[in-house]
């Protein structure tokens, strides 16, 4: 086995260097986050939200930024953008209790009542335990399982003792099944995040009409913070579906924002 150590070392190093492929923030931007937090704490929520938005526009994706931005909007009474940013933060930090608590409070404050608190999307996001993991975490977990399986195969190839090879066979079967399961969950999540688009109503109130234009009949009205599934976009109009699927219609795209 010692002859093959360089191969394993190469694998470990490759995985260890993985996060280094991300672009790190400059110290100035980190100071900006701290300064924006100070703005928030002094009650200047509008300015704080503006700076948080600018940091996010610069490409930083952080659950902290989205959560703080959600708070700044909530304090302004903008439930739509508060829920939107809490949902974005939840995607990045799905196990964070503060994000879930504030998201629930914001949902409780909105004008539209769904069948269940938070609507069907909220149920989807909490009932499945794998939803407590991000897509990246699932992908890395699956990769780790694959690496373990590969190591077992190597043991099968090079082990001289028959008993060792026999144990490696059993372990390979178990790890192989785990790899199949993990890869399925990861694939499903990858697909759903790419295929299912959710939107949040950011307008204070918007009429939902039966077609992509103002000349269509009004079907119902949504208020800020309502969450829906994006079905289609045509020009400046967005077709959405509410939890349950019975209610759907078109709204101006400016009235909603995608997660």
């Amino acid at each position, binding site marked *: 086995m010692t002859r*093959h150590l360089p*191969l*394993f070392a*190469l*694998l470990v190093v*490759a*995985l260890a260097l*993985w996060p280094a*492929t*991300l*672009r*790190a*923030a400059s110290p100035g*931007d*980190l*100071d900006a*986050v*701290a300064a924006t*937090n100070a703005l928030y*704490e002094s009650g200047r929520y509008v300015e704080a939200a503006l700076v948080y938005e600018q*940091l996010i526009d*610069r*490409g*930083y*994706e*952080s659950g*902290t*930024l989205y*959560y*703080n931005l959600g*708070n*700044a909007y*909530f*304090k302004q009474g903008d439930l739509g953008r508060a829920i939107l940013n809490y949902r974005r933060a939840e995607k990045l930090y799905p196990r964070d209790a*503060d994000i879930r*608590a*504030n998201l629930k*409070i*914001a949902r409780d404050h909105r004008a539209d009542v769904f069948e269940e608190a938070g609507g069907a999307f909220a149920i989807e996001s909490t009932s499945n335990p794998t939803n407590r993991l991000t*897509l*990246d975490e699932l*992908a*890395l977990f699956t*990769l780790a399982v*694959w*690496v373990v*399986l*590969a*190591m077992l*195969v*190597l043991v099968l*190839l*090079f082990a*001289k*003792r*028959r*008993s060792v090879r026999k144990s490696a066979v059993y372990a390979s079967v178990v790890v192989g099944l785990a790899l199949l399961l993990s890869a399925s969950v*990861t694939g499903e999540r*990858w697909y759903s*995040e790419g295929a299912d688009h959710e939107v949040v109503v950011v307008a204070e109130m918007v009429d939902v009409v039966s077609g992509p234009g103002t000349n269509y009949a009004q079907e119902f009205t949504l208020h800020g913070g309502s969450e829906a599934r994006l079905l289609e976009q045509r020009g400046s109009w967005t077709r959405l579906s509410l939890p349950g699927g019975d209610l759907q219609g078109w709204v101006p795209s400016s009235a909603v924002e995608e997660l």
Partner: protein
Amino acid sequence: MNMPSKWKLALIGPLAASLAMLPVIGLAQEPPIKAEVDRNEVAVNDVLTLTVTVKGSPVVPNPALPQMDGVDVTVLSRSTASQLSIFSGKTSVLAVSHYRLKPLSPGTLTIAPISITLSGEVHETEPITVEVHPGAFNPRPDPEPAPGNLTVAETFFVKAEVDNPNPYIGEQIDYIFRFHSALGFVNPPRYDSPPFIGFWHEGETDSRRYEMFLNEREYGVIELRTALFPTVTGTLTIEPTRYGFPSAGFRSSRQLLTDTVRVDVRPLPSGAPAGFDGAVGQLDIDAKVDVASAAVNEPVTLTVIVSGTGNIDTLPDPLLPEVAGWRSFVGPPAVDTQAVDGRIIGSRSIERIFVPTAEGEFMIPSISYSYFDPTTELYETVSTDPIAVSVTPGSVDALPPLQAGRDQVERVGTDIRHIMPAPSSLDQPEGPIVERPTYWAAWALPLIVILAGTGWKVLGNARRRRTATGVAPHTRAMMSLDNARQQDDDPYDTAAAVLTSYLSEMLGQPISGLTHQALAQLLVDRGVDEGLVETVESYVATTERVRFAPGSAEDTSGESVLDETAKLLADLDGYFA
């Protein structure tokens, strides 16, 4: 008992009427025996009722049917009812006999005096005369009840009033309910108090029983008092009180109602002193501390007691003082009330726990309390004396006192949770890692390692095979045995394979298809000793048997089988070399 309805009426009517009159007759201040008829003029064949009432103690004799003269009379029926009553601790019996009489001829009917003997004394009734007219007779209207004869309503009645119909707000008044019974004290009344709307009430504060004379009759009176404190000004109405009069004997139950009572509540007069908070009554205030000297951080309990007459339950608490530099905790008030002579008196105590935070001499200021006294119609203010407390230096390790009146923590408001602090780093990711080539490169890496390992293994085996072809058959056979030892291969399989391969090579022909005899002959032909040939023959037979029948193997370890094979190969190689 299929009696015609009119006969039932004829029997029950006079009986019920006489029972209704029973208490009236029984309690009259008259001779112990009395006889009366329900009317003094009747027609022939009409029915006349004669009632004879006898009152005595403890027993009364049954009166005999009196003699009747002047007209022929038939006695249709006779019934007797009696009632035992206890009045002022004295037992008396009232016996009433009813005779239904039917005059058969006109004339003047004279009912002779009826006499009885009680305690050796003879008593008798007055004679009664009744005019019996021939044919139909229209009776005159009933006269007004003669003095001394009471109706049922006059026998039992209830009254309600308040002792002060014009009180001040917060002043105690008594609602008085009285039940009058001409039959003396009966069972405890079923008293349904009315809803005292606009009053704070304390329930029954007093209950009395006494006798009184009313319209020359003696009544047993049950009096119940309820303390009321008006809480609003203006005219208040107390709904009638209901009294359930129980049924007894032939008498059905009845319900009596009092009249509605009106109370005009006055507001308190002007001129209230500063600090007056609505207290009404006659009150006093007192204050004390549990210790006159305490250490820093040791609690000092100030107890303030407001006591006196009034609505103690709803009295406002006095304004307790603060002491500069001291922490303080207020506990809930403790109230103790009781009714004395119909008046509500009691005390209300409030505790304040002070915690001195610095040493020195301190003074708990005077506490004032103002109230309105409705008896004098004046505002009064009472005060406590200042209390001195000496505070000594405390122990550094002294624990803070437990807070009085700890409650369940309750949420009083909801807000979102606070923002997160600035992170130690910020990332600018390029989308999910599953969409980055490096991620899939990482997937390929183990695969490459596996392929490389497989190739390494294949190449290694080929190299070993090439190396093995250049050495002597005996050496190769020994290498095979060594490999078998390392890889835990089946020893009999390995031994058979190694021996077969070695002999085939040395004999120059495959031996796997030969019989044991043919193999032996070949070995003999090559000059191998016959003993060794037999050993080889036996060994081959053993390995074959064990290979095809594993259960037939002797208790021989794999290592010894391989060793034995090596020894056999060495012996053979001696001949072939």
